[in-house]
């Protein structure tokens, strides 16, 4: 369904599909091109599976050189390109269009160099997020950003979306952990930006490219920071009788000068779904649950957790439990990280991704409840409390078109609410097609035009992932707003 999120395809391109597929095979070999219908179907959607569209063809290059050849070809023939990592985007960032070539980097997944002394790793970007940590873990290091999809998602996708994760309160998101990259421009030229040093020279192009949703180029290699892992880490659970009290407890912990490595919040519906799935031992008789994790030596951890328990006392926490073993810690995190999968077993859902100021949490949760009830829908909330990133999961039945439409409307209302209270439309998932038409809620037409003109610097013909991020009428805005 929902082909209508895309403009009508260019029939002069789709009519040449067989010829284009042959051309692509010449560029990367037949093994690197998927042109048959069954093969292409695997690429018709991403993590936002409500939207589907069969691409013109799929290319799976094995080298920067091959990416360069394909982009040069697409550029010369004015064919749209959809860059793709593992296709885990929750905002339709990798949604193809009928007249577009999908370039998937998943076969480019080698670790090129691990440099422990300089604390960097150079990798091909098709490597999974967890693959980077896996490669350096034997040396006691890790790659910090940890999106929930880290087992599957690629660094390329993380770079495109500036992905975060549960531990970014302490370690930052992707943009804070990428030092250098090799990127193929739309005309096939290959540029190197940054390197193994901090703060690349000139304008912060790395900062601009990270989070540009595949609209500036295809990043094929990256140098990332790797960090020495703490001696140990341990989570604890704190239950509360209301979300408001949980929020105040988080504020008190931060005010005391303790910045836990993660502070995760779940409301009652989320607790119940996750517990039923993961048997993490979450208390079921509380309205809100915090998972708080600290790092250090075992003794340091004990001291810090004891301080947190003391700070929490005035808030009358229930079900306080400090993990006593590695197994228990893993179970506690398994519950949280499997939230999306667990919910997916019982219902279809949209995972929203706004960010709000922590102080507005109680009010926002109440209003989210009202918005969803108003649309006759249920909602569960997961929240990275340390950094204000809120994930309301709106439940619906995808077989009921009316419900799905109402869920989309509720989601839009929730994101508008996030902007209204001083937050933003998306904290870590990206805009994609999902939030494209909400951008005018957060930005003026002049601000959108400014951003679009930056895209034009990198991609004058708008061939790279063009139907995302900005409202479809966007390119007219770009020209109008800046002429005077």
């Amino acid at each position, binding site marked *: 369904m929902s082909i209508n999120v895309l403009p009508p395809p260019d029939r002069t391109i789709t009519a040449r599909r067989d010829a284009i597929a042959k051309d692509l095979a010449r560029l990367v070999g037949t093994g690197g091109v998927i042109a048959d219908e069954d093969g292409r179907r695997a690429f018709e959607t991403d993590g936002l599976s409500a939207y589907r569209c069969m691409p013109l063809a799929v290319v799976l290059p094995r080298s920067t050189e091959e990416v360069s050849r394909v982009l040069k070809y697409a550029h010369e023939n004015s064919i749209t390109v959809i860059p793709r990592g593992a296709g885990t985007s929750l905002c339709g960032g990798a949604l193809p269009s009928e007249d577009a070539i999908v370039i998937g980097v998943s076969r480019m997944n080698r670790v090129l160099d691990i440099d422990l002394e300089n*604390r960097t790793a150079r990798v091909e970007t098709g490597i999974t997020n967890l693959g980077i940590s896996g490669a350096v873990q034997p040396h006691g290091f890790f790659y910090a950003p940890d999106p929930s999809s880290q087992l599957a998602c690629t660094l390329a996708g993380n770079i495109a*979306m500036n992905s975060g994760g549960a531990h970014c309160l302490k370690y930052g998101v992707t943009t804070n952990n990428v030092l250098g990259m090799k990127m193929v421009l739309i005309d096939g030229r290959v*540029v190197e930006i940054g390197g193994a040093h901090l703060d690349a020279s000139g304008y912060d192009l790395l900062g601009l490219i990270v989070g540009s949703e595949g609209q500036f180029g295809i990043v094929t290699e990256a140098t990332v920071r790797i960090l020495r892992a703490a001696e140990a880490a341990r989570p604890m659970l704190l239950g509360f009788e209301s979300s408001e009290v949980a929020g105040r407890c988080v504020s008190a912990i931060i005010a005391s000068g303790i910045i836990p490595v993660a502070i995760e919040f779940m409301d009652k519906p989320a607790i119940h779904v996750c517990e039923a799935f993961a048997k993490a031992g979450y208390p079921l008789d509380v309205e809100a649950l915090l998972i708080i994790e600290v790092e250090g030596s075992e003794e340091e951890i004990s001291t810090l957790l004891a301080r947190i328990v003391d700070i929490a006392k005035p808030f009358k926490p229930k079900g306080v439990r400090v993990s006593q073993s590695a197994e228990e810690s893993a179970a506690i995190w398994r519950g949280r990280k499997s939230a999306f999968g667990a919910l997916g077993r019982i219902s279809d859902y949209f995972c929203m991704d706004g960010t709000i100021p922590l102080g507005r949490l109680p009010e926002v949760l109440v209003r989210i409840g009202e918005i969803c009830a108003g649309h006759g829908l249920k909602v569960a909330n997961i929240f990275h409390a340390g950094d204000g990133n809120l994930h309301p999961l709106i439940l619906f039945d995808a077989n009921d078109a009316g419900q799905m439409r109402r869920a989309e409307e509720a989601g839009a209302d929730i994101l508008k609410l996030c902007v209204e209270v*001083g937050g933003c439309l998306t904290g870590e998932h990206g805009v994609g097609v999902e939030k494209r038409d909400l951008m005018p809620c957060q930005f003026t037409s002049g601000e959108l035009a*400014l951003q679009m003109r930056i895209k034009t610097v990198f991609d004058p013909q708008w061939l790279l992932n063009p139907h995302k991020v900005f409202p479809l009428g966007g390119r007219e805005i770009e020209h109008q707003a800046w002429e005077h």
Partner: protein
Amino acid sequence: MSQNARPGSERELQRLIADAARAEMPVEVLGSGTKRAVGRPTNSGLTITTASLSGVTLYEPTELVMGARAGTPLADIEQRLADKGQMLAFEPIDLGPVLGAPAKNGTIGAVFATNLSGSRRVIAGGARDHLLGIEAITGAGQSFRGGGRVMKNVTGYDLCRAVCGSWGTLAVMTGVTFKVLPRPERTGTLVFLGLDDTSAIEALCAALGTPFEVSGAVHLQAPLAARLRHADLAASKKAVTAVRIETFASSLRYRLDRLKEALGAFGEIHEFDDENSRAFWDELRQLSPLQGSAAPLWRISTAPRSGPAVVAAIARYMECRAYYDWSGGLIWAEVLDTADAGAADVRRVIAHHGGHATLIRAAPAVRASIDVFQPLEPDLAAITRGIKAVFDPADILNRGRMLADL
């Protein structure tokens, strides 16, 4: 002769820039001007300072966020934070005294415009990593916002990062929102005396490879260490290598002891207590060993382990005194005064080892005749010019400050 303007409101500033854009009149943009001597000298018809746009507009200690108008003195910001036991974790250095300007006189806008971070950058990230939102005016006189006041925000392109570190060439910031963090309870420092550069950087990289969250890793060659205000260190007449730990009072002893075990092989280790440590790192924030000299000063960023080779290579061409920060990844190199401040040789060395070099201090005639900032590869230069044209189509903001054609 350039006119001066000190707009008292964002609207007035916007009008000034819009007028200048229409007249295609080059504008020099300043906070309080402490870093004015960095970059290629510019010819401007109008100098605009944001110093009257002052005041903290938002401070939520429990949300770790502060907002301020761009001209707010950094000293005021840091005082407000200290009152609540917080700080700017990226520890911005104060370039003023090194350039002959007064100390502690910079503005918060300029901190982000120049993306200058101090020793704690190795663990906490740089200025660019702490900037959450900006309000700014383009070279066309159009106001815009980038980012916001929340920690995680991937809505649209990251304009904060683009403007941060652009030295006033893309837009004039009128307000900034940034992340703040708690001040550590205790600080301790381990010090080696007399290490050669290679051993020192090896020790510093080893320290950062431990799990003890080292928050500063510096090495000063003996001639620069001799200029430290710390009397004992200056009197030692030896190179100084220092590693900082900042943590909870209950953890400090443990971490220092474990770190000593890890680094014992590098030589005798001295230890600074909390007070001594704070004084030492405060002094480095002012770059005190680089003050009181007019010799050309380079700021070089490279991979940490390449640091000693870069310095040794430069020293083959010219007299050179080095202060390494970021475990070797940031080099402050004071060189002998020559017509080009050694630029040709420094850049050749950098081309071989990787990284970039900026001439932070030199006479105006020297800065006018060489590339002060690292020249860009042609493809990146084209993208850079494109971005400049998006933000500043009439090319009026700090024209030519970063690169001759930018």
